[in-house]
């Protein structure tokens, strides 16, 4: 019988035995964030440093030149970058709010309501977890066109709202709420919406945060709706603007600074939101299993 040295998973203190894990994880962590550090560094480089040969990794004299130039001029499309940014903000905020409400309502109903199609709908949703929108770009385009959403803000929003992963995560989380709690409230005469709003929502906040992050990432990074459904330049989003910046990069070193600044603007909101919500995310993930 081998001896049991106590549980080593999730230790509460640092121990010498953990050094080997650090020895592997720290270099790897550094390697993983290297490209991100590079974006920051590149976006802060003044023009003469961008032209340096051999190229340098870190910036020497950081400036905000690239960022202010990105936001003030419009090299490529004759429309200021701030317009794209504004579109992205509006679309992202609406998508996050609506998809949260919709996913929460659906998750709650699938978990706590008894009705005939419950099992079927949940199974279909679980299969839809593997749905890859890019695979059906063409019929999706036809649907969007039929609905009259071409060159319409709603064309950015509606296709992103059905989020099977969001529904799935919230449903798994609502499952943790004891039925008695909801029945007690209902017996006291609480209306469905009140039960949902006052009892369910406060408990599933961690899951909501997680879904908010996923919805945010999806909407903020989305280029497809701009490329496929919008032909008016003024309706396109910042993520789309990024693609035009990168395609012109090849023959334009000065453009590198601009593109890096844009990439940084794309990344920073994602990072901030994740850092704020990370403990809630881990809480949700504990219940994320597919049974």
């Amino acid at each position, binding site marked *: *019988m081998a001896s049991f040295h106590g*549980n080593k998973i*999730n*230790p509460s203190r*640092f121990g010498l035995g*953990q050094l080997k894990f650090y020895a592997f*994880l*720290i270099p*790897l*962590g*550094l390697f*993983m964030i290297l*490209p991100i550090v*590079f974006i920051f560094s*590149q976006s802060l480089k003044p023009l003469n440093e961008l032209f340096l*040969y*051999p190229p340098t*990794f870190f910036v020497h004299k950081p400036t905000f030149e690239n960022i202010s130039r990105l936001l003030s001029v419009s090299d490529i499309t004759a429309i200021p970058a701030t317009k794209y940014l504004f579109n992205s903000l509006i679309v992202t905020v609406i998508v996050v709010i609506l998809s949260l409400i*919709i*996913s929460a309502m659906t998750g709650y*109903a699938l978990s706590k*309501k*008894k*009705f005939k199609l419950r099992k079927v709908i949940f199974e279909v949703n679980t*299969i839809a977890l*593997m*749905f*890859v929108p890019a*695979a*059906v*770009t*063409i*019929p*999706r385009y036809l649907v969007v066109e039929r609905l009259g959403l071409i060159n319409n803000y709603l064309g950015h929003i*509606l*296709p992103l709202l*059905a989020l*099977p992963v969001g529904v799935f995560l919230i449903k798994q989380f609502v499952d943790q709420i004891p039925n008695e709690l909801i029945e007690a409230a209902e017996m006291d005469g609480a209306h*469905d919406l009140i039960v949902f709003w006052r009892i369910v929502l406060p408990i599933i906040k961690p899951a909501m945060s997680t879904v908010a992050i996923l919805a945010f*990432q999806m909407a903020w*990074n989305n280029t497809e709706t701009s490329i496929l459904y919008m032909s008016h330049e003024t309706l396109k989003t910042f*993520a789309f603007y*990024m693609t035009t910046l*990168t395609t012109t*990069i*090849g023959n334009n070193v000065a453009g*590198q600074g601009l*593109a890096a600044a*844009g*990439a940084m603007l*794309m*990344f920073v909101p*994602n*990072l901030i939101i*994740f850092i704020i919500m990370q403990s809630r995310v*881990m809480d949700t993930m504990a219940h*994320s*299993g*597919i*049974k």
Partner: protein
Amino acid sequence: MKQAAELQRSRLLHEEQISTQKVKWYKKRSVRNELAAYLFLSPYLILFTLFIIIPVLAAIGLSFTYFNTVQAPKFIGLQNYVNLLTQDNEFMMYVLPNTIKFALIVGPGGYILSFFLAWLLAQIPRRSRTLLTLAIYSPSLTAAVAMAVVWLIVFSGDSTGYLNAFLIKWGFINEPIQWTQSPHYLMPIMIMVTLWNSMGVGFLAMLAGILNVNPEMYEAGYIDGIRNRLQEVWYITIPSMKPQMLFGAVMATVGTFQAGDIGVQLSGANPTPQYAGQLIINHIADYGFIRYDMGYASAVSVVLLIIIYGFSKLAWRLFGEKD
């Protein structure tokens, strides 16, 4: 005595009343529930039908037609599938092998890597774990379009590209290499870049799963004769977190097939140079939006959906708790 019996009877009566009330309440509740349930579900069901179910069904329908977007679709039976299997040289010679290679390395590779990293992270205390998790997870927060900038600068084909400059400086090469335009290097670069940002939601789920395994299970395992950490992972950790393993596997599958655009972004062309980085997703875009043969593109879409479904079924077979 008499009083006590009376009391007992009235109590029983009262209880009976309450229980009939309860039954009535439950009945009313179940009717109300059914209605309320559909009200709660309706926004999602409508959107889900419009943007997921109808497109999938339409793809299947269109795959049996010739459709050039100008004229109405013309039914041609299985012709598209026959062409796909017999006429489409690029598909058989490049696209399918590329996709299989890419999917096998990025899918299971990224998945195993995710699990391995999550397991390593579970071995260190909370504070440093949070920091390192953030470092490993943050690449998946980046948008592919935004990161294309970095890759284009790093893999730039002239001698000012970072990788070229580095390799020339250390004497590995004498001439700059056209990384993203070269049929040799495009695929490895695509795989590396995709692996780099594949530690996403599935990775977090598996980390949470490992952390939540009941510690007593390990104790019991060691009493039953588990000898090393590898056995511990195999006989205790993985079996106790099957649901998270499955969720991670499904996420890995989706991530793999969604990442297909990267080759076109890196090389700036569809089709990619000599079809070196051409994946099914790019083939669909090529036929759908460049050659406007939507029927054929739909047939390719259907094949892709079937492949994805097959991958996920495999994951279910491995980790599903019920068959």
